[in-house]
């Protein structure tokens, strides 16, 4: 059984995500958090296999929480909808197991979780943003 903790500040999303993963036969959701801080606490308390996190949450963001849990054996999966500057780089440096689209079909999400459990990283290409060179013609003169 893959033990999962989910952190998401939007209540309906948290509920739906929880129910959908619970329906998978080899997964069980053992904790739900409303922010990154709660997620860190739950992970330390229950030692889940996987912690799925939203990025933008009050108190502590998913990326902050992921950085804090970098040395914890629990695999961190970040879910988000749009690429935002700097996020990909931070997720990569925090060595998260997955950096995935929140809207990926639930089968795909479940499959990704299984692949990540085997030690591979899964990063949605849509979320990888370019590191821009600074060629701002307004500032460099």
């Amino acid at each position, binding site marked *: 059984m893959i033990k999962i903790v989910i952190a998401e500040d939007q209540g*309906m*999303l948290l509920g*739906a995500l929880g129910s*959908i993963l619970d329906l998978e036969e080899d997964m069980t959701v053992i904790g739900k958090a409303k922010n990154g801080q709660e997620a860190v606490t739950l992970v330390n308390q229950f030692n889940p296999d996987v912690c799925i996190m939203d990025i933008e949450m009050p108190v502590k963001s998913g990326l902050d929480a992921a950085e804090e849990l970098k040395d914890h054996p629990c695999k961190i999966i970040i879910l988000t909808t*749009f690429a935002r500057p700097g996020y990909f780089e931070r997720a990569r440096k925090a060595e998260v197991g997955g950096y995935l689209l929140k*809207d990926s079909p639930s089968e795909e999400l479940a499959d990704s979780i299984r692949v990540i459990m085997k030690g591979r990283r899964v990063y949605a290409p849509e979320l990888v943003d370019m590191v821009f060179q600074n060629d701002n*013609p*307004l500032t460099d003169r």
Partner: protein
Amino acid sequence: IILLPFNTFNRNKREKLESQLKDANQKISQMVVMEERQRIARDLHDTLGQKLSLVGLKSDLAGKLIDANPEAAKREINDISQTSRTALKEVREMVSDMRGTKLKDELIRIEQVLKAAEVEFTIKDETTLEKTPPLVENVLSMCLKEAVTNIVKHSKATTCLVELNESVDELSIRVKDNGTGITGKIDPTKKNGLRGMEERLEFVNGTLEVLSKEGTELFIRVPTVVKQVKQEGMA
């Protein structure tokens, strides 16, 4: 003999500058577009991103529940219906914000503003605006808004006349009040209403004339056939 190389030297320099100007323009427009997109993406993230993800998840969930627990499935479907409608409303609001204000909408708005300020309002509008590019309309709406704001804020006027005209090659707006007129110098570092108008009009090759006698009169003109300076990379 001496003049020529100097001349050439300077010509080269000028040509280099001119080409820099072109390059810079191109880079800027690309950069600005990127920045604007990121800004919009940020706005979209919190509203649409969340809602559409939720709809996706809940539809998967409903599909899985339908046989085992049709009542629970119905609740999910209900949430989907709600969520999609809220999202649609938000998209509409966002889109109408982004589109800028239509001139005809702005006319309605200023009528209300002037009524509230107890300024008698007369309008002569002969325009169809059929061939007016959105950008031009946007700029004109902003000008009109600022002109009327100024009347309410500064003029002490009791009447205001707005006249819109359209000819083959030009669109014009006259805004006239019977107030104090513009008295004293305008400090361009502090005030930016009128300057902003001028700058925006310049984008669309328009002009602003300000007359101050027996009140204030603004005359705004924009050529209908707009020379689009930066066609490329912008379309």
